[in-house]
């Protein structure tokens, strides 16, 4: 059984599939520029964020699940790590505000569908997969709590 991507993430995959080479990097850069800043409650309490050591650049994330099961994602990465910011922004745009179930159903392989492996080293792409895995684990922890 293959799991379909949620429509928002599918749109992003389609956007990446439509461009090649240098244009793909430009698209990733646009995502990177659009990563929203942390809300004050995290910006002033960075210790509440979880570090993602699998990323080659510093990345922190937080996940909140509302009473109705809606999940909110928060990311922080420095401007000198635009690729990591771009990956975080893809997940933020594609997953923020979805239900916990929808996020848990996101296949880890979706990162390969972006067609970035010719441009970005495999270790970095694993960083994005690790972000997704940590988001899922956080959601499961909060559901179990």
């Amino acid at each position, binding site marked *: 059984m293959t799991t379909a991507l949620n429509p928002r993430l599918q749109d992003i995959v389609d956007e990446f599939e439509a461009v090649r080479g240098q244009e793909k990097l430009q698209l990733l*850069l646009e995502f990177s520029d659009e990563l929203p800043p942390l809300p004050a409650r995290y910006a002033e309490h960075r210790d509440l964020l979880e570090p993602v050591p699998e990323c080659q*650049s510093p990345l922190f994330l937080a996940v909140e699940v509302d009473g109705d099961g809606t999940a909110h994602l928060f990311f922080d990465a420095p401007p*000198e*790590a635009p690729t990591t910011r*771009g990956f975080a922004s893809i997940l933020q745009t594609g997953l923020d505000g979805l239900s916990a179930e929808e996020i848990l159903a996101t296949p880890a392989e979706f990162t390969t569908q972006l067609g970035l492996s010719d441009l970005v*080293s495999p270790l970095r792409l*694993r960083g994005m997969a*690790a972000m997704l*895995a940590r988001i899922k684990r956080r959601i499961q922890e909060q559901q179990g709590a």
Partner: protein
Amino acid sequence: MTLPYDATPKFQDYARPEMLVSTEWLAEHLDDPGLVVAESDEDVLLYETGHIPGAVKLDWHTELNDPVTRDYVDGAGFARLMSEKGIGRDTTLVLYGDRNNWWAAYALWVATLFGHPDVRLLDGGRAKWIAENRPVSTETPGRPRAGYPEVERDDTQIRAFRDDVQAHLGQPMIDVRSPGEYTGELLHMPDYPQEGALRGGHIPGAQNVPWARAAAEDATFRPRKELEAIYGGEAGLSPADDVIVYCRIGERSSHTWFVLHHLLGYPAVRNYDGSWTEWGNSVRVPITQGDKP
């Protein structure tokens, strides 16, 4: 058409002062004919966010490596790449990048395999240029194509292969990875198995000197005396030694190769680019775990 060397006093203490330029020197010579500046980063998007005006991008992953075989491009590939970037054999090539010039040093090491006559590093790299509020540009420079000759890559002088390392066991080696990678204790969380190698640890006899110790806070190289204290004092190396350096895939160790060979003047230093991703996956090679060589 070699550009003048940078006379910065700190550089004159190094064995080969001509291998470095300062941000001041570069700002002054940026428009000189015969100079090409190339940025080589760990982060593949960083160049696009803004680079030294006129600088071209050099990507280690997509451009310096052969896309199929685990090896560098060959003479024809390197000639094509350099020509496309507008770099000729007589060009003064100045490399710089993020993370203390980690990838820039790697690109310099690869250019050295092809014997590029004049290639230098920008001391302090991208971080220092930005910290000094020097101009950056997002414009991709349209450099005229150059005619770089096909030069055969020489793997015999500064590159070591696995067999060379096996024959070298018992002689000086520096593992430039983090202490956790060196001891083999790398964090190993349930859902995220450490990828890259099947075994953890280091090559027997290798001493652990993390590569970034050679860099100061502002990403410049430490003065010669401090480097001598680290590599000669703590690690006990001497210029007469035949030294092999390695890391995970040979990038971080290019930085240490540069320090030992060009800044401290050790004549015989080779970089084992197979590094831990080859050694830690090889059948029946000796491995040591823990914090002792």
